[in-house]
């Protein structure tokens, strides 16, 4: 089984984001970056499929040199090969998908895994776009996957429940948290990854269809109000929740 996993290098969820002086990007100084958490789930699923069916898992990431750090982590977790599709510039979801699709076409994997969204821009588009560009079926927000005889049975998380779907390979899947419990890269894996090369090639050019024009911070929360500390304030609290906050 040939598996490809597309992974992204994103700011740590705990990082306090500052908008840069250009007003359309974030200030990267002092920001810790990491493997996007849903992509980590996708890697784990790829490794599990490989452990069951043998074969090979390739991790792909489109971006600048800094993405190597995340590819290195994928290698340390146990991925066999890593490819950096290099582009230091800015791309929209379509541009990223086009770059990945071009490489995946020649790689022709049986299964392509993505995170359901990367936690930086929250586009939730790349996996589905790539599948469409390659003309293959896809399932998003997957929380359970069983591969059997060229078919995949999935459970997808939907509002209030799960949808059970079935599709034929080759196909693409967008991982949701809960699909599995990602492993830590073992220290042995980290040392082994040192000797696995990261293949670098320029990402194919793609037109930009959606342009960022501004980045805005959310409106700061206004100060809270303490009404008192005993039960005598409950009626007033209910009135305020009802009339002012309008939440009940």
């Amino acid at each position, binding site marked *: 089984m040939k598996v490809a996993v597309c992974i992204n290098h994103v700011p740590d969820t705990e990082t306090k984001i500052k908008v840069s002086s250009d007003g359309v990007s974030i200030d990267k100084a002092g920001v810790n970056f990491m493997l996007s958490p849903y992509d980590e789930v996708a890697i784990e699923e790829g490794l599990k499929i490989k452990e069951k069916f043998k074969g090979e898992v390739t991790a792909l990431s489109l971006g600048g040199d800094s993405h190597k750090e995340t590819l290195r*982590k994928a290698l340390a977790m146990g991925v066999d090969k890593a490819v950096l599709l290099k582009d230091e510039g800015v791309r929209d979801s379509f541009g990223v998908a086009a770059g990945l699709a071009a490489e995946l076409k020649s790689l022709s994997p049986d299964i392509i895994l993505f995170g359901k969204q990367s936690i930086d821009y929250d586009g939730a588009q790349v996996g589905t776009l790539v599948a469409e560009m390659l003309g293959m079926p896809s399932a998003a927000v997957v929380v359970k996957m069983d591969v059997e005889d060229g078919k995949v049975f999935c459970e997808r998380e939907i509002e209030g429940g799960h949808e059970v779907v079935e599709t034929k390979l080759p196909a693409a899947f967008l991982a949701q948290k809960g699909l599995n419990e990602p492993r*830590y*890269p*073992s220290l*042995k894996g980290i*040392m082994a*990854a040192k000797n696995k090369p990261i293949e670098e090639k320029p990402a194919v050019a793609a037109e930009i269809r959606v342009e960022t024009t501004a980045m805005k911070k959310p409106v700061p929360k206004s100060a809270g109000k303490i009404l008192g500390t005993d039960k005598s304030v409950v009626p007033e609290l209910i009135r305020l929740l009802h009339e002012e906050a309008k939440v009940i």
Partner: protein
Amino acid sequence: MPKFQGVDFFNIESLLSEEEILVRNTVREFVDDEVLPIIEKHNRAGTFPMELAPKMGELGLMGATLPEEYGCAGLNNVSYGLMMQELERGDSGVRSFASVQSGLVMYPIFAFGSSKQKDHWLPKLAKAEKIGCFGLTEPDFGSNPGGMITRADEKSDGYILNGAKMWITNGTVADVAVVWAKLNGKVNGFLVEKGTPGFTAPEMKGKHSLRASVTSELIFQDVHIPKENRLPGGEGLRLPLSCLSQARYGIAWGAIGAAMACYDSALNYSKTRIQFGRPIGSFQLTQAKLVHMLTEITKGQLVSLQLGRLKDAGKVRFQQISFAKRNNVFHALEIAREARSILGANGILDEYPVMRHAANLESVLTYEGTHEMHTLILGEDITGVAAFE
């Protein structure tokens, strides 16, 4: 509490390799996910979190600098140091477990053991399927281990061991004890297996420090040790001292981890705790404390990193390891006490990690060579005159 983001005022990150960063981040995540949620419970109960042992083994934290042929990761010393830093950010007891298993049990078997001893023990110790301990200190010989009275007498079919050790980390839970005893007046290492008749290892109770770690006595009454259980690779006090150099190196890094945890906790607290209508972090006295902490952490990081680079290049001197252990542990303890004061009364609660670290670091100040003994080692090195022996 917000997730720990590291303390790096001097962009020391830029001096680390990709895999050193990955090792640190992996252990950091492990500590956040697996150690911090359970450690206060174990500290309160006075138990080592044994459930962590197989996980630490699987991750490759045991004997991590030893070669792959024994199932180890083959890390360089800087990666190993960063791993110890993160473990001790969790708890000194958890770091002690890794230090003892790696530096004091696997290292002497690797360095002085027979190939049969290595093949038998190292892979199992690497997975933490088997646990080891290191018995050097005796009730009457701590800083002066050369005076030990535990002795081995040669018999036709092996040795008879008599004596007692005290303050032995992991003693009660160990499957194998690396025991140092005098044979014909010279210090030798012996592998004593759990359950050997005449050998008992009762746990020491009543500790105010390093509570999430097992500390034991080892008692030997006419214990028969087979010939093949002596470490054949040499004799003399030099052997156990070389093990201590390994473990002390890790402690120099570990202390920074404990200090970082305390600093991080105090810094966060100082930003949110309001007194006199302002965050206490806005008062000059609190700022002076925080700046002192950051300064000492940063100095300790640079000392440890250069120590690791020297060790990786095979150029480290044991006096340099003494310098780093002495300096970093001393300042970590000072930082823990200062952090405690910033947290006011909250500082004494186990809702925050600082009091636990402060108490733990009292042990760390004493074991692996007391602060004073390292002072004397350095004093001898710079003056040429030994104040002890």
